[in-house]
């Protein structure tokens, strides 16, 4: 399968379309970081997304990348929501993901984009640990550091089963350069090795996804698509409330018990050896 092409600078944001469709209201936010409030089965929820902004101040973050403004901006909006809910039942938070990754640039590095991403990771994890059900909904690309900052800390990850949906550690060209392979070799390896695959159905075999939602149009969603995804989100929220607030469901899932056998082996042996240490250590 070929890699989806880069987002058109002028193209409407897929994340925004899903955010506004699911919430049934216009997005709040003038730049790349958008929110909207909606209801799921009578409960108030807040949606977040990062979309393209052709006029963004930082040119390396105009196509939906998580850049400096996006990382710190997401952290600010998430923390404001946590503050609003400090004395009431924590609202479910839904991260709609369609991002080509983190912003690549010299200025981004100088201004510490690693910390901007860490701020978003921190805010999402803080929400999760305070009892907000956090659900990631992947409607397009979920790449690399962009996904770590926006989506990967969720209690549950849902993805649309669509050829334009892709979750991956790095784009093919860069991955080929770093691993000193040709793009053709990499594509062949990705066909043979599940963790390297670029399509979302192979990703689902890792056991990390809570669900793959089929039968919806990712690129041009309509009301029946929104209704279907809303019920999947409600189910994921209910499932989150029944489970722990950490990320252990990812490696404890039935599918992961097959694919991530090495993870299980590591966790079992390490706990055994840890408990056997002398008390004075």
């Amino acid at each position: 399968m070929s890699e989806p092409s880069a987002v058109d600078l002028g193209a409407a944001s897929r994340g925004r379309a899903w955010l506004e469709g699911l919430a049934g209201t216009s997005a709040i936010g003038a730049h790349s970081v958008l929110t909207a409030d909606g209801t799921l089965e009578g409960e108030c929820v807040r949606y977040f997304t990062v979309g393209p902004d052709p006029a963004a101040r930082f040119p390396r973050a105009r196509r939906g990348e998580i850049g400096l403004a996006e990382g710190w901006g997401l952290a600010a909006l998430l923390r404001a929501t946590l503050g609003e809910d400090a004395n009431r039942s924590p609202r479910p938070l839904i991260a709609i993901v369609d991002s080509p990754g983190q912003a690549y640039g010299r200025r981004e590095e100088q201004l510490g984009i690693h910390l901007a991403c860490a701020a978003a990771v921190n805010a999402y994890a803080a929400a999760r640990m305070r009892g907000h059900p956090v659900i990631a909904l992947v409607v397009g690309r979920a790449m690399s550091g962009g996904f770590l900052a926006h989506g990967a800390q969720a209690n549950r990850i849902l993805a649309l089963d669509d050829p334009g949906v892709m979750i991956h550690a790095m784009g093919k060209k860069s991955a080929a350069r770093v691993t000193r392979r040709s793009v053709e070799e990499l594509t062949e390896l990705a066909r043979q090795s599940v963790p390297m695959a670029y399509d979302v159905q192979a990703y689902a075999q890792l056991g990390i996804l809570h669900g793959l939602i089929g039968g919806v149009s990712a690129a041009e969603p309509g009301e029946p698509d929104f209704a279907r995804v809303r019920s999947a989100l409600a189910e994921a929220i209910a499932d989150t409330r029944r489970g722990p607030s950490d990320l252990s469901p990812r490696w404890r899932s039935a599918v992961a018990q097959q694919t991530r056998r090495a993870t299980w082996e590591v966790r079992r042996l390490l706990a055994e050896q840890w408990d056997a240490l002398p008390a004075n250590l």
Partner: protein
Amino acid sequence: MNEPLPDENVHRRWLARASFVELNARDRARALLDPGTFRELLGPFDRVRSPWLPPQGIVAQSDDGTVIARGRLAGSAALVIAIEGAFQGGSIGEVGAAKIAAALDLALTDCQRGRLIYPVLILETGGVRLQEANLGLAGVAEIHAALLALRAHVPVVAVVAGLIGCFGGMAIAAGLCSWVIATRQGRLGLNGPEVIEEEAGLAEFDARDRQLVWSVTGGASRRASGFVDELVEDDCEPIAKMIGRAWARGVPRIHASERVAPMQHLVASLGAQGIIDPNAIRTALGDRSIP
């Protein structure tokens, strides 16, 4: 004017230095811990290695390039997590990630039971291992989660020493740590120079220009802008002492990754053109140090 000759003691001290950077991950962990207290967990003889590398024609290593050690450091019960830069660029695959996340989770359980285990991460890593791409990415997210849960109980210290530096998802992990210590040789950044050059072009970043690379991500420049809390010499004993002092400072009231309002304001005010003053970043991050 005649420069004074270097003090003979300074010279001798420099020669007597025990380089930390030149050690492998296991020897780094051993050098930090009090003599005789080093205990490796899930060591090479347990032979838990990557199931994903051999089918790709890459020889797996029996510790997957990650060393987990317990022992004592400066009198405290310590957990040392050291990543081996010489194996696959210190990249994080399924096994390495699981070792790190599981060790942090075990330390958390001990802390919750009232027994504080003090963690330090020696980060020599290019980030996610692309040969295990999505399992590496998932593993790094699990490391972030474990680190944040543990950080509420004990200060988590990161050391960025040298050779490979600390990049990708593990640079985000460093950003989540309570305290970051680096040597001049250490580099800290999200995207490695080659990847920026590939994604954004030679005009954005020339990966062969070493001076440029160090001026952006090098330890001294990171210290100047406050992304690193303390700069240390490449010498085992002072590094161990600095880790002990960071633990003694305790859990910061506000972590660097929580300095949202001042950093958001600074980034917005600078935009794509404003001249970057390292002091302004350092101030926005709370001008921290480990005395």
